[in-house]
């Protein structure tokens, strides 16, 4: 599956947010989107999801303009998880996940036994079977985020789009989400996620898109994009880049040092 963005421009009313954005992604791949607050990261992923109207240019899936794809078939290929903590559900985990199958379930009927099995399988896969009958509103932020991941994945989409999936989560929950993203890539999926953590992007994503405002952006292989220089230019800070050694492993880390 090839996702292609051509000369994309997005705006709110007369205010342009992004201009002439071009990039191309093919599965399997993890792509991270980095950039300061308010630069248009969420707007961009909403446009990829067909939720934000395109002002100019186009987005295409396997060469077909996404605006021309029938909604039902488009949303069977693509899934969305909102920023951690931005969504709640009043239902139990199982009922929440089942809603992810809504387009397959007859509008006049309840979910079938096979739908329930599918939902239970995905809970099992994400190791949250024990949350099955718990109310999502009473779960911790990390557990709730896992349930929303399960809801996005239950329809087995080709593309998963996440808006800051590790925001508001502790270290362990951050890693849980990131490991799921990695395992999805191994299954051949295309994952795009916004993040405020350059080190997550470095460790988990193959491609990176770094937004700096309007038509000023860089896109390419993560290792070439997330450099000291790019980070400093994009976030207008001084950063220190270094390697952390832990036994045999070496981890690249970026630490913000001071404001320019």
């Amino acid at each position, binding site marked *: 599956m090839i996702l292609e963005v051509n000369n994309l421009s997005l705006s709110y009313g007369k205010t342009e947010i992004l201009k002439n954005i071009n990039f191309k992604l093919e599965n399997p791949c993890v792509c991270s989107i980095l950039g300061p607050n308010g630069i248009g990261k969420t707007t961009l992923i909403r446009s990829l999801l067909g939720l934000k109207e395109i002002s100019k240019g186009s987005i295409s899936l396997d060469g077909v303009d996404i605006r021309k794809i029938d909604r039902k078939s488009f949303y069977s290929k*693509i899934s969305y998880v909102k920023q951690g903590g931005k969504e709640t559900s009043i239902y139990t985990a199982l009922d929440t996940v089942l809603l992810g199958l809504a387009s397959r379930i007859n509008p006049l009927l309840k979910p079938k036994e096979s739908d329930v099995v599918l939902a239970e399988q995905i809970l099992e896969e994400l190791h949250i079977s024990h949350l099955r009958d718990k109310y999502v509103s009473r779960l911790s932020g990390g557990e709730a985020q896992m349930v929303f991941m399960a809801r996005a994945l239950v329809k087995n989409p080709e593309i998963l789009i996440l808006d800051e999936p590790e925001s508001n989560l502790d270290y362990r929950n951050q890693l849980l989400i990131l490991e799921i993203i990695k395992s999805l890539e191994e299954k051949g999926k295309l994952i795009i996620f916004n993040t405020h953590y350059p080190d997550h992007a470095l460790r988990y994503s193959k491609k990176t898109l770094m937004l700096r405002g309007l038509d000023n952006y860089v896109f390419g292989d993560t290792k070439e994009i997330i450099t000291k220089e790019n980070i400093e230019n994009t976030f207008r800070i001084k950063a220190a880049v270094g390697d952390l050694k832990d036994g045999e492993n070496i981890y690249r880390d970026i630490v913000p040092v001071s404001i320019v």
Partner: protein
Amino acid sequence: MKNKTEHINIFVGLLLILAPILTAIICLSMGRLNIPITDIINYFKGIEIPAQYRLTIANIRIPRIIATMVVGASLPLAGLIFQSYFSNPLATPDTLGVASGSCFGAALGILLGLNILGIEFTAFIFGVIIVILTGITGMKRSESKQTIILAGIIVGSLFQSLVSFVKFIADTDTQLPSITFFLMGSFQSVGKETLFISVPIVAICIFVIFILRWRINLLTLDGDVVKTMGVNITLLRITVIIAATIITAISIAMAGQVGWVGLIVPHFCRMLVGENHTRLVPFTISIGICFMLIIDTISRTMFAAEIPISVLTSIIGAPFFIYMLRSRGGVKL
């Protein structure tokens, strides 16, 4: 294990159907004239019973009981739908102003001398206008769930003054009394013709909501997320909001404004069965009917004169709601 839950489901389903029927039969027997239950059963079997009983059952009690059941199913169900639709636990036909709008429509209908179908229609039209007005005022560019209620109160009070205006220009000898009595809320004056028109329409709307009950769960999801579910959410929203508005309007055209039931019955059912509308919808209908039947029977049997329904529903509703707010850490949706 699965068999067991299925058995329980069937049992609960039967209970939900039987409870309103049994309550209705008991309520049929009660009143100024107490009729033995056996005579009521005999009446339905077609066995001869004393004429006085027969006439009371056929001409007074049955129309009233049916009207009560229609309103008892409608207002709580409409409240449930509005709560889910606007993701607001306080949304009801009253707080959203829909009730005021329908009251204005009905009063206008009486002023224009329309027949019952006409009155129901004007009540519905103004109910819809209110939903749209409240929706536009309260939802635009606002994520806050409180705004919708504020908008409802504003729009509702506007229409309340319009009702006053209608009363002001109404004929003081004929129209004003009938508007005033109508607005107080009562099942006393519901005629058979009214029922013949109202019952089928309400039945269709409730049926539509009932079969869509699993899908209604989608209404409470985040706006962006629900679009990515690949279902026609706009069609679902429009269908259920129209159905809920119709049943509200018909209830009000039939029995005037009956407060509180749209709020407390759905919340009581949430306490019983949780948030899933698959279960919430049938429970709300069934318990709503039973509740309204009991309230109406109290209203006509407790004192020599009939107590207005709204007086009773508020006396029960307000303390219950306070209890719920305090004991359950607030009402959430």
